[in-house]
């Protein structure tokens, strides 16, 4: 097992298109690191550079202590699971899993032993003689996982391995990969566009946008203390609400939404950090669960507003309520058995103590609870 270290790694394609810029990242040994971001953010490029499938145009890549920039993929001692499984269609499941071992000249007994063991772990033992086309999507992805684990590589790479599965199978495989990580005690780097996968599986998450790392941290760190507006909006479902406005000074400091919408007192604990930006335009962010119905937390918050329900999405244990406001749509997540009809006017309370303040200039976080 080994860690992975990227030092100022960049990828620029011919024609000057930059897919990744100055990536500095250390993946600890045995860590489960998740790279997330919207499509085209460079996460897959970073993974492919680690795999050796994409040339590194700047910086250094280390696996363990060895510089890997110019090492062929086969010599990096890594395994990769692809989004589309990439099983060899002309080989049986057994041969698919044995392929890498055969190339590395393992003895027949050793190969049989390892393949059988992996097949048992993944519950695909009865399919060993089948060709991939005779398997379902979930089974194919298990074979792809099996092909990776038989080799016992230093590092596992996953490129959106669950994206082609249906929702139920995805949840199941998610848990299985997490279990596999615990069992193998291996370094795993996992790419996904689905932040739920990142939150549930990762020891740490790397959020990327336009080829640049936005923030690296534990799932809760990213959720509670996002470094900028992008991370705040990307992590969490439904996404954080943003209000466009400015800080004004009256008796105390106030946030005033553009166009005279929302206005509330800045909680005392923020005053010190916010004090320097009086008059400047900012974004205020509040997560959906911090906008609640009056009756649930009556009197606790000082910022409230009457809002008309546009859409209500009952989720069973909670309801997502969508309102129209000056800055666009506001979404609130309330735990209730009430399912308000569209058009109903509700008094909603904003938990301003949990608000996030972002600079409008560079969208960096100014203050967070």
């Amino acid at each position, binding site marked *: 097992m080994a860690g992975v270290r990227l030092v100022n790694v960049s990828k620029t394609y011919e024609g000057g298109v930059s897919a990744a810029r100055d990536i500095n990242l250390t993946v600890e040994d045995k860590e489960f690191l998740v790279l997330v971001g919207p499509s085209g953010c460079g996460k897959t490029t970073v993974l492919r550079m680690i*795999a*050796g*499938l994409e040339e590194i145009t700047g910086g250094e890549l280390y696996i363990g202590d060895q510089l890997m920039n110019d090492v*062929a*993929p*086969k010599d*990096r001692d*890594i*395994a*990769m699971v*692809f*989004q*589309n*499984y*990439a*099983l*060899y*269609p*002309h080989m049986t499941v057994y041969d698919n899993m044995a*392929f*890498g071992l055969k*190339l*590395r000249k393992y003895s027949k007994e050793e190969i049989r032993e390892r393949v059988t063991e992996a097949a048992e772990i993944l519950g695909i033992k009865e399919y060993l003689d089948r*060709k*991939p*086309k*005779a*398997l379902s*999507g979930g089974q*194919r992805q298990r074979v792809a996982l099996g*092909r990776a684990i038989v*080799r016992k590589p230093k590092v596992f790479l996953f490129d959106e391995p669950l994206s*082609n599965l249906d929702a139920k199978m995805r949840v199941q495989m998610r848990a299985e990969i997490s279990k596999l990580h615990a069992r193998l005690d291996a370094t795993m780097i996992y790419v996904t566009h689905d932040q739920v996968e990142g939150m549930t599986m990762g020891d740490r998450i790397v959020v990327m946008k336009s080829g640049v790392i936005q923030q690296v941290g534990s799932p809760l760190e990213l959720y509670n203390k996002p470094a900028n507006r992008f991370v705040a909006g990307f992590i969490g479902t439904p996404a954080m609400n943003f209000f466009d406005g400015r800080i004004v000074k009256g008796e105390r400091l106030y946030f005033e939404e553009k166009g005279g919408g929302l206005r509330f007192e800045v909680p005392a604990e923020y005053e010190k950090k916010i004090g320097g930006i009086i008059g400047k335009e900012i974004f205020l962010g509040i997560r959906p669960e911090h906008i609640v119905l009056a009756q649930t937390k009556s009197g606790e918050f000082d910022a409230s507003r009457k809002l008309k329900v546009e859409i209500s999405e009952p989720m069973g244990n909670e309801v997502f309520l969508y309102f129209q406001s000056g800055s666009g749509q506001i979404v609130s997540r309330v735990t209730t058995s009430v399912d308000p009809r569209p058009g109903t006017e509700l008094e909603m309370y904003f938990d301003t103590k949990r608000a996030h303040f972002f600079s409008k200039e560079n969208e960096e976080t100014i203050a967070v609870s």
Partner: protein
Amino acid sequence: MSHKAKTQNLKLRILNLVLYFLLIGFTLAVLYPIVNVFSISLRPGNRLLSTSLRIIPDGATFHAYKELFTQTQFLLWFWNSSIIAATVTVTGVALASTAGYAFSRFNFYGKKSAMVGLLVTQMFPPTMLLLPMYIMLLKLHLINSYLGIIVIYTSTALPFCVWQMKGYYDTIPFSLEESARIDGSTRWGAFTKIVLPLAAPALVITALFSFMTAWAEYVVAAQVLQDTSLFTLPLGLKQFEASMSTQWGLYAAGSLIISIPAVALFLFLSRWLISGLTLGSVKG
């Protein structure tokens, strides 16, 4: 059985009947010339035309076959054709499979113009190219040699083969090779162990096309090969045709034997002519 089902059943049977009649008609149309040639080859003497409709003629004899192998240079021509066709086939497959791969997988300067260039060569009929190719071979001192005719046949067959190999490779997901390279293959290893087996149907087409380009070609061979000891089968057969009399028996027997390797090769290779080889490899 209900009335409706009965009518439907009847309809189906009539349709089948019509279909079979059509198929039998096509089969007869294909078989007739072959049977006719076979019949001619069995006729005693050198009779091309006959009023009899019998397939096995009166006084049928295998004399023509015997004479073909003992009195003529048929075996030599067969050998020459085999050498030339085999070399063209092997060279064609080797070059088309690798060139097609390069066109499919790599980006290089002039790729697009090279592809179009290959296509353009297919727009000229071989007879038009005969003279320039003859002059080229003459300057290269390749007239009247195996190599000369092999170069011409290969270059005639290659453009089509490269295009169709490239087209087939394009349908094989790139991630299969990447996966193989991570599993421990070199790029060449991924090509030979993963891509080539999956491209079997395209390789078969390339092999058959290359073989047929060389096996039964007459016009170019007649210009390039002048020494009778280098003659290929089509040139040899033409020898039986003289200004006064043509040895139809030998001609027919030779024609039938020539067709055997081509049919055999097709039957042998057709088992790889199956579609859907890459099914199940990746999520479609």
